[in-house]
Each structure stands twice: as C-alpha cells, then as structure tokens.
C-alpha cells in the first residue's frame, strides 16, 4: 500500500517536477509537482505522485495534473492536488477531487491585543475557549436548528449566522465567496445528510481541526500586512474546521452515484475513487448543487465558532469585540470545486477547478476578493502543526500557472499509527507547554496523532510556493494556545 513511487520525475526547475505524459498511456496531460529536491525524497515515499498521474486521466483535464508541496497520499486525487477540467469540452467533476470534508478550510481573525495582554493568562483563556467551543468526536453544537433552518444554512452559509447575530457584515465581505457560494441546491441533498449532520453546527470536530490563539512573530511585507490589519506582536486566532457530517455524507452519496454512472458516460479511470461525471450532466449539476450546500454549511460553522470566540474574548478582556478589534482577516476553503474562467489556448474557457488540500490564491485586482484588499491580492491562510507555526500569504499574478492555487498546510509525513507509536510514553502536552504552548484537547490519542514530527515543516512548504512564485509570504504566526478535538 505504501510502495514508493518509482516513475520518472523530470526536473523543470528548482521548484517544479514533471511526470511526463507518456508515463501512463491514458494520461491526457503531464503531472507537475511543486517541490524542492529535499522534500521530493519524502514525497515519493508514499506513492502520492502515482495519484497525480492517475488524475491526469480525467476527461477534459487541461494544462496539467498539479500538486502542491504539502502533497501526500489520499485517495483519488492526492492531498495537495489541483486539477482543472474544461466544462464545455465535456470536462468532468469528481467528488474524489474535492474530498469528504467539503470546504475544510481555515480563517484568520485579528485582534488589537498584544502578546503581553494575553500570555500571562493564556491558560485561563484556553480553558474558557475549550469550555465554549464544542470539540471532539461525537460532539454537538450549542445552536440547535431544525430541518428548515438547516436548509437555509445550506444556501445562506455564513450569512445565516450573521443574520441571527452571530457575527457582523464585515465578516461576510472578508470570506471566500462572501461566506456562501451561489448555486447551492438543498433538493440535491439526501435526507440522510440532514440526519448525519444533525446537531453539528458550530462544532470543531476532531483530528487536525483546531482553534489556535497565536502571536504574529514576523512580518515580511509591511504594507500588505498593514492592509490586512496585521502587525508584529499582535494576537490572532486561527480556526480550522469543515463541513462535518454534512460534507462527509454528501461526498459518500455522490461518490457512490458516480461509480455507478461510469459506464453510462463511458469513462475509464485507473482508480474508482476518481469516479466522475461531466460537469454539464444532470449528475454533475446535482453534485455541484449538493457540494455547495456542504461548502456553505462549513462557512456557517466557522462563522458560529468565530462568534463563540468573540464572546469568550469579550468576557475575558471586558470589552466589546469591536473595541478589541476582533475582525476577520479572511477565510479560505481548501477542499472544494469552483467554476472559474481562464484563458486556455487563446480562448476564455469555463473550467472546473478541483482544489483538494489546496487553496485559492487570487492576485491583486482579480474579481472575487474583498474591495479593501484589491490592491494587495487575496490573503491565503496556511496552518502549520500545533507545535510550530502558521503563515499568512498573498496570491500573485504568477499563480495563473496553477489556476491561482497554492498549498493548504503542512501535509502529513507519518501515519496516525506510526505517530502514536513514535510518541509512546511522551507527554505531548508537557512538551508543548515547555515551548510556551498551552493545549486543551478531547481525544485521548489526538496529541500523539497530531504531534509536530508527523507533519512536514510548513516553513519548507511555504518557502517552496514562494520560491515558485505562486504565493508570497506576508506574516508568520506562532501558537501560544490550542484547542483540539
């Protein structure tokens, strides 16, 4: 299962490696992996490049099957995969190109607080956040919604939460798709999705999801950082979670439907997990409608958690969220499919961009980013592991190469079982405390599974995307408190 990749990887330059189209007879385009020589040694170990090659078989794929430096083996598309298909040319959409946790994503929230305001009381603050924000497997949220409201969440996304007082309009302007992607269709969502997702609004979940209190350690481009409301020494909060059971069930339902439809559309793919249908087919449109429901559910989820966080800060620091400057910098999705226009062979074409463990990174001036960020470009939030750091990047013009896509995080190096074995007998909570990081968690194995050495160093990942020119560093944040499921 984890045989290393033994195919040919041709060096294009210091940050780009090609799997030639002739590697497999069914490949329609080459594969391109963004990496440096050092990271490539780890990348080939789990055979993730084979998945890049498999994805190159997708009907209608254009330019290349791409992967970001945080690539690791998933199922179907690798994590870190970016694939674009030409909608008008019979291009396909694949749930395996999005992932089960639809719109797993991350948001960065700024504050006016300095590290000195928070550090002396970080343990109490983290305890308060842990009590307020539901975490862990099987957890349920504080906000109870009925079936009709769940359908509204699926179309209104973060806007549903703001309308009910869980946030402010500025939050929506600073969220990808303004917190709700158009074209969500709850009629394409099965009853079992509602049953599975019941009670999960406003919950963090488990695994690599987290809420972190951070301090901005470094700023790389002052003018852009300032434009985003970021400065050195400032306290920020990062929230990483997704669509919970809603997304999982939608992906499951549609992956099964698409496996069953492969013969109808005469599609041959090397891996059933890449099962797909033409975007323009009834089945493709149904999946898009349902996927968007899950995406909006996730944005609502992150908005509710932001509201809970604001409530904790207000009580803790005895001030309004407004006076504390608790504002959303930006929120990005990193498991999603979008319809976007790009020039392909001299013609503007509508493409279905799959970003699975990859983040959109629009350049300055591109429609779809907040007006106050127009001159800077789109903020890109890159969470690292709980023991190291995270980054704020910005999109660049050069990223047109990847359809304005970049990495999403650190990427795993070690399996969960290997991480548990390697850390047996160690108190990860104490090791983090020794580094000045207070952690509260729910799952008994969570800290062992999520230990730093189980992940690539996000700094290496970010340096590669910067070196390749597809996004640019703005700030580095260091965790001082973490809550996990």
């Amino acid at each position, binding site marked *: 299962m984890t045989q290393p990749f033994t195919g040919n990887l041709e060096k294009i330059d210091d940050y780009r490696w090609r799997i030639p189209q002739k590697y497999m007879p069914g490949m329609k385009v080459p594969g391109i992996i963004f990496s440096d020589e050092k990271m490539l040694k780890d990348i080939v170990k789990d055979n993730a490049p084979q998945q890049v090659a498999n994805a190159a078989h997708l009907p209608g794929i254009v330019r290349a099957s791409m992967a970001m430096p945080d690539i690791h083996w998933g199922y179907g598309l690798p994590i870190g995969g970016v694939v674009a298909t030409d909608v008008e040319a019979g291009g396909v959409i694949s749930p395996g190109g999005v992932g089960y946790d639809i719109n797993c994503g991350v948001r960065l929230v700024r504050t006016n607080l300095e590290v000195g305001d928070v550090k002396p009381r970080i343990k109490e603050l983290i305890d308060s956040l842990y009590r307020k924000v539901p975490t862990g497997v099987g957890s349920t949220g504080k906000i109870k919604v009925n079936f009709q409201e769940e359908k509204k969440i699926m179309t209104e996304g973060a806007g549903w939460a703001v309308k009910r007082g869980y946030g402010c309009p500025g939050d929506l302007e600073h969220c990808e798709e303004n917190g709700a992607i158009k074209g969500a269709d709850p009629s394409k969502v099965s009853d079992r999705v509602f049953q599975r997702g019941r009670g999960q609004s406003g919950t963090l979940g488990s695994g690599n999801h987290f809420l972190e209190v951070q301090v901005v350690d470094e700023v790389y481009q002052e003018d852009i950082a300032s434009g985003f409301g970021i400065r050195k020494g400032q306290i920020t909060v990062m929230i990483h979670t997704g669509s919970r059971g809603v997304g*999982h069930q939608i992906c*499951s339902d549609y992956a099964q439907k698409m496996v069953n439809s492969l013969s109808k559309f005469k599609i041959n793919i090397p891996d059933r997990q890449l099962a797909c249908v033409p975007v323009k087919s009834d089945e493709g449109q149904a999946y898009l409608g349902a996927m968007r429901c899950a995406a909006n559910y996730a944005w609502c989820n992150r908005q509710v958690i932001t509201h809970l966080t604001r409530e904790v800060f207000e009580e803790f620091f005895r001030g309004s969220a407004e006076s504390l400057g608790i504002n959303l910098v930006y929120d990005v999705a990193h498991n999603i499919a979008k319809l976007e226009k790009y020039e392909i062979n001299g013609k503007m074409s509508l493409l279905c961009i799959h970003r699975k463990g990859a983040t959109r990174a629009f350049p300055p001036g591109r429609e779809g980013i907040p007006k106050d960020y127009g001159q800077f470009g789109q903020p890109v939030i890159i969470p690292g592991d709980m023991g190291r750091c995270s980054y704020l990047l910005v999109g660049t013009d050069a990223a047109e190469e990847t359809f304005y896509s970049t990495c999403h995080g650190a990427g795993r190096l070690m399996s969960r079982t290997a991480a548990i074995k390697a850390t047996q007998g160690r108190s990860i909570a104490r090791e983090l405390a020794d580094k000045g990081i207070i952690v509260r968690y729910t799952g008994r194995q969570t800290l062992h599974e999520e230990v730093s050495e189980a992940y690539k160093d996000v700094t290496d990942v970010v340096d590669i995307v910067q070196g390749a020119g597809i996004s640019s560093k703005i700030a580095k944040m260091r965790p001082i408190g973490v809550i996990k499921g």
Partner: protein
Amino acid sequence: MERYKQIPHTADLAAIIYGQDIKELFENSAYAMFDMMGDIEGLGASEIVKVRLVAPDRESLLISWLNELLYLSYSKRALFSEFSVTMLTETELQAEVKGQSIAKDIKRLHTEIKAATYHDLKIQQTNKIYMVTIVFDV
C-alpha cells in the same frame, strides 16, 4: 485467523480484512471498521437494524455496506459489533447488525471515520482465504 490487520497510511486508516468466504469478509470488514472507530468490547445489542443494498459489483457493494453502516452509526449515535450477512450475491446484500446507542457513553467513540473509500479496492483470494485492503477517510 485474525479478522483484520491495521496497516500504515499517511493521513487515514487502512486495514487488510480476511475471511474464509465472501460473507465473512463482508462481516469482518464491518467489524474492523467499528473496532478502529471505538471501543466495541462488551457492547450491548439493543440496536438491531436490517440492511438491504444493491450495487453494480461486489467491490461497490462492499463500500456501500460500510458507508451504510457509518450513516446508521452517526444518525443513531450508535456503534455496532455484531454483523450477520444473510444473503449475498455479486450485486445484492441483506444483513442484520446489532449494536448499542452510545449517546450516553460517547467516550466509546474515539475516531470519527468519514467514509470507506474505493481506493485501490480489490477483493482477492489466496490459499482459500479472501482478502481486501480498505482505506477509510478520517
């Protein structure tokens, strides 16, 4: 003969499942999934569910079976530990599963499996033992 063996996978869970026949392979796949999800030792049998599924082929049927059980588990807030496949063809399955609600004992659940995936899925037979490797998304 062991029912399953967990194997390394970078980001998710994977297991090789064994069975003396195909029915047992399906039963042991379900057992493996719930055994990796939580503590099913000593679980009661107050939740009894009959399952009936159809799929285009045997591998798809296996994944449909496991994902159906996941849906039942999350929607009923239950874990299952006993699996009896009463009818199985290449494209159809009937089974009865038994388990217990863990709504008041949520600590029994320690890993949230999102789905059983189709990745590299192939049921094989070696020396009269059926085997399949399944990757579960967590």
